[in-house]
């Protein structure tokens, strides 16, 4: 609680400082000063893989498969789309089975699960290099 009180008074002191200098030009320069000599944000400072993932997430993409796979109906018209960096990938089908059915999915026409018959189709997956 003390920290919040301290923070509130510090914030109030900082904002009153900004308001007292009514000159808009000075205000802007002061604000920029606070931003540039403050703590950087991820946008400004992230690098390497972290930056690539940050940019991709902002665009709504998931190149490194961090999220759950998308839901599909699994029918012939709406097969499960399985991304792959090569031309085949192992699939484990949990749809209408009591066990997980594992099989290789090859590129080309959609394959069906040997047990429940759900459709799976391999799609090429681009990695940001």
């Amino acid at each position, binding site marked *: 609680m003390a*920290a919040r009180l301290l923070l509130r008074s510090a914030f109030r002191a900082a904002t009153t400082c900004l308001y007292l200098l009514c000159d808009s030009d000075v205000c802007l320069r002061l604000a920029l000063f606070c931003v540039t000599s*403050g703590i950087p944000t991820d946008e400004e400072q992230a*690098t390497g893989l972290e*930056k690539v993932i940050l940019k991709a997430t902002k665009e709504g993409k998931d190149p490194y498969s961090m999220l759950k796979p998308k839901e599909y109906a699994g029918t012939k018209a709406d097969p499960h789309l399985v991304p792959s960096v090569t031309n085949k990938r192992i699939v484990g089908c949990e749809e209408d089975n009591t066990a997980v059915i594992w099989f290789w999915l090859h590129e080309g026409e959609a394959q069906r699960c040997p047990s429940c018959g759900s459709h799976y189709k391999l799609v090429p997956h681009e990695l940001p290099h």
Partner: protein
Amino acid sequence: MAHQAHAYHMVDPSPWPLTGAISALLMTSGLATWFVYKTTTLLFLGTTLLLLTMFQWWRLIIRESTFQGHHTTPVQKGLRYGMVLFITSEVFFFIGFFWAFYHSSLAPAIELGGLWPPTGITPLDPFEVPLLNTAVPLASGVTVTWAHHSIMEGARKPALQSLTLTVLLGLYFTALQAMEYYEAPFTLADGVYGCTFFVATGFHGLHVIIGTTFSMVCLLPHTHYHFTSNHHFGFDAAAWYWHFVAVVWLFLYISIYWWGS
């Protein structure tokens, strides 16, 4: 950047875990040889190797995370789990010493006079220096929380000030405890009271030194703009560890200093 299809960090081989293990061996055996033969060679060697390992390993982590960007969200999550599990293991470590204390003090043996504190022991007054030593970790808990909020809000100067204050309070606690140890009317050799007192508070003091070091190692990257308002796990880990150390002190104070006096 590696050609990997996942967001995890496959670390490159490095010698620092090995040097860390060797330093642990040298320090423990060095401690034993110091006690028995009064020679400090092994201990000195082990401590030097430990300092080298700390410097190199943490430098490597900073390079991998801040400069190379390997610490993605799943990697950070793993690090969080790791820190939580480590602190949990430390909690159990202390539970053992509290168990020992309560085992001996709840039903004091006849050889101790059938009472606690045992006959002949003058315990420290809990309302003198130990009380100050309780206010200090509580205050440092406030300052570390203040620092955390400052970092998240992007306020660099308050973050620097509060983190420095936290480190200073930690050093102050260590200095006060050292003085208490020197002035105490009983020693480690004074039966089960001395044993439980110094082992429990001694390990706690060691953890305070570790926590202070951790905070100091956070202060340095912070002055070099390494942390961002969203990604500052090193600081989070230091803050968690520091809160853990403060809470252990509270338990120590209430059990050993207050109830046990």
